[in-house]
């Protein structure tokens, strides 16, 4: 049901973990629907220098989290905010129709983390 890319990202997820000195953190989903994604960012000079994730969810949820971190790393915040759910799914060679909502979560978590950073650094 999953593409090889999805399986690869599930088996060898990139950028798993937490960042202690993260300056942006975003979390979406809730345990009652079975999906939680949390993204940690280190932003320097408007660029995503480091990014890590933690995810509770299905194979697609793990793979999209992993993929979104890969896609976002090194991008400017504006570029990262442009990253759409469809782009994440596409980068994984597609997802089964029932699992498309998992890719929403990944992009949403990234965007939430960026917003968190922007909130905290409004004055700057």
């Amino acid at each position: 049901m999953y593409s090889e890319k999805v399986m690869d990202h599930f088996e060898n997820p990139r950028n798993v973990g937490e960042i202690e000195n993260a300056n942006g953190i975003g979390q979406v989903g809730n345990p009652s629907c079975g999906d939680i994604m949390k993204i940690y960012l280190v932003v320097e000079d408007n660029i995503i220098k480091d990014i890590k994730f933690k995810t509770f969810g299905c194979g697609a949820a793990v793979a999209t989290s992993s993929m979104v971190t890969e896609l976002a790393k090194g991008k400017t915040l504006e570029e990262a905010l442009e990253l759409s759910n469809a782009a994440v799914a596409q980068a994984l060679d597609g997802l089964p129709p029932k699992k498309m909502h998992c890719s929403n979560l990944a992009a949403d978590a990234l965007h939430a983390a960026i917003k968190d950073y922007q909130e905290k650094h409004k004055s700057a």
Partner: protein
Amino acid sequence: MRRVYFDHSATTPIDTAVVDAMTPYLTEYFGNPSSFHSYGREVRKAVEAAREKVALAIGADPKEITFTSGGTESDNMAIHGVAYMNKNKGNHIITSAVEHHAVLNTVKALGKEGFDITILPVDKYGMVNPDDVAAAITDKTILITIMHANNEIGTIQPVKEIAAIAKARGVYVHTDAVQSFGKIPLNVDDLGVNLLTLSAHKFYGPKGVGVLYIRKGTRWKQTLMHGGSQERLRRTGTENVPGIIGLAKAAEIVSANLQKEQDYLTKLRDKLIKGVMDNIDKVILTGHPTQRLCNLASFCFEYIEGESQLLSLDMKGIAASSGSACTSGSLEPSHVLMALGLTHEIAHGSLRLSLGKDNTEEDVDYFLEVLPAVVQRLRMMSPLAED
């Protein structure tokens, strides 16, 4: 890679003796059992011999056995047929919160049609309390449908007690014995039920064929389908002959080996449960600790989501299943797990391992060897595990 099949509750491989019994009916003996000529008669004879075998296996009369297209159809036929035939007597139907969808959705559909329905809760082990059944019966109650053993957590229901209560009140009882047949001794008179469902592919028979037992004298009629007059008007449509022959052979084999298999599977299951409970923390056994199917071990692992778990095990060659919503892409975890009173997070971490006669101790060892790393890896990824 080693492959281990631990999903016998979903479906079983077909016994080779069953395939051998079916083969002549896929080749030489192809006649339609309703046909008048020799090609028909030889097949009719085989179908009736199959009916006798099934009757023998559950202590019924052959006339009480109707062949269907599977467990789902049997459940639908049983419930709908009793409901429609007994409308004049009453419109109340009792079931439980942990039934298979083939029962639960059928009862709910009748609810929408104006029947009055009661869905009984279960305790934390998934068990229905016979006292609750007694309290729920009214003058309008016409049917109680409670499964014999649960497909997700293996809990065995007190069907005999329930049937005794129902009988005293003149209420019919149907039980879905899809998961229990071949694993617990099963006799319709001993259980005291009026209707009972079997599905061949759960006991080493083929998919697409089942049985509905209807006790003589039960006010029931075929209401789902209209057509020709096969199966003494109980089930229309040309009979799935090879399927029926296979079902009967499978019933014969599991009945003959019941005690031996039960002992063997209980040993494997207990080894598996002990291995999991001893080596993994933050895990609960779901279902009843003792009143459970001999082949079913089911757990919830905290901080872990079921589908990821299945996927990880699958990559190691282990086939299992989960009641997690993510396996189906829906939001709610299985209604069975929710009925146990588990939180959503916990229910999402469910894992069902259902064993079969071809599993070995080595299969269990291999699983126990693989599991800790799987759990650890997923917990490392989980945002829930941090606190």
